[in-house]
């Protein structure tokens, strides 16, 4: 498997470190500002449970983080097919 790094070009997968499902976004924790962490609401608890533990785990296209450790050390967002390992697209996480 090869990943097309937007900065370095196509490189072997062994240069990259996997960073997991990229569709998971850390829930907003505004309600905790200045409060007691132990009094977190059930709603927020549920959101964090889903963020930390629950995965779509699709057979097919999967958006995921990869870190180009053996190259430019950028975090990348990659869309890859988990059944065929075909890489559909690669973007920089920096968004440029």
């Amino acid at each position, binding site marked *: 498997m090869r990943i097309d790094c937007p900065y370095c070009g196509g490189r072997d*997968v062994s240069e990259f470190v996997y960073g997991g499902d990229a569709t998971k976004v850390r829930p907003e924790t505004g309600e905790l500002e200045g409060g007691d962490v132990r009094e977190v609401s059930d709603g927020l608890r549920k959101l964090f449970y889903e963020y930390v*533990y629950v995965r779509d785990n699709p057979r097919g296209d999967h958006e995921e983080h990869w870190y180009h450790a053996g190259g430019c050390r950028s975090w990348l967002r990659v869309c890859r097919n*988990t059944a065929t*390992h075909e890489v559909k697209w690669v973007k920089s996480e920096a968004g440029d």
Partner: protein
Amino acid sequence: MRYSAFSLFKNALLGHKHWGRAWGGVDLKDRYDVVIVGGGGHGLACAYYLSKHHNVGKIAVLEKGWIGSGNVGRNTTIIRSNYMLEGNIPFYELSMKLWEGLESDINFNAMVSQRGVLNLCHSDAQYDAFCRRGNAMRVHGVDSEILDVDGVLKLVPELEVENARFCVKGGLFQPRGGTVRHDAVAWGYARAASRRGVDIIENCEVLGFLRDSAGCVEGVETSLGLVKTGKVGLCVAGNSSRLADMVDVKLPLESHVLQAFVTESVKPLLDTVLTFGAGHLYISQSDKGSLVFGGDLDGYNSYAQRGSLPLVEHIAEDAMAILPMLGRLRILRSWGGIMDMSMDGSPVMDRMPVEGIYINTGWCYGGFKAVPAAGWCFAHLLAKGESHDASKAYRWDRFERGFMIDEKGVGARPASH
């Protein structure tokens, strides 16, 4: 036909032309009391124990490929119960006890070989951790021995103990651990279940679930047609998320590929199971003489039953680091299986949020050794609707409640367990 020395003798005289079919050969019926999805080790063991110990009526096992085509035929055949945490030890010890009585129970030679499992340690801290684990095992009535370097060398004289990076400081040995012929486990359970009236249907893929107006399951849609049933058990390992998705449930799981390898056959050189944790390698020698070994996951989500080449190189290097004399051996085959990697490295055996569907998943790469106990406990859950004592820790609300069973202590990183 019951297999025995007499049946072997009789069939040998008749030219082996009259052995009966071991399982299957039945058509899918319209209705079953229990449908088990997945004809791997777990599904077949569950069907067998369900038919033997629980009165649940007609049972079917639906397998999308053929019996033995999934992870039950893709593992490195190791059995052990050297766990440390409270929720795990009783379960894996139950599994070990069932392995010990398996062959006479199912009347099939599964080649259960208790040749011992040796874990190597490479630092004083790791030695201490192994002592703690060994003690935890003994407290729970599981056999364990702590070995020094001489003790390790007595078991595996070929070992490279003075490796500059990972010199061997000792080991934790479980004498009752060992290997089992994995295909024979699938065949043996399939035959035993079949003999008790379980319908084993191969090449039958589940495409969806039928639900009534209240949302309860009332049937399964398969590639061979509709089947009515009120109770479904899922034993589908790496495909768990796909089946759960059919009823809109998301699981705390990722699917990852794990590779295994087998070399050409050589004369006896390794008569125990050796694990090299620092490099993540486990190796044993099959009765044919081939060395069977495996290592780490490829490390990224995968549903492809084949691995990547960088890992082949890495695992071969691990093998060379600890047993340098393997360098001249040729690898005959390598293959991959899809692991249901859970978020804490421990399994889930529980009801689904959909009434009538039960799930047995999250076995990571410990699924093979768990086959008998998983079948035993899942049968209990399916029949009685409540967890067996040995598997009561494997509820999936533990993630939400914060009661992980994380043997390795690496957190919610499935690829690292």
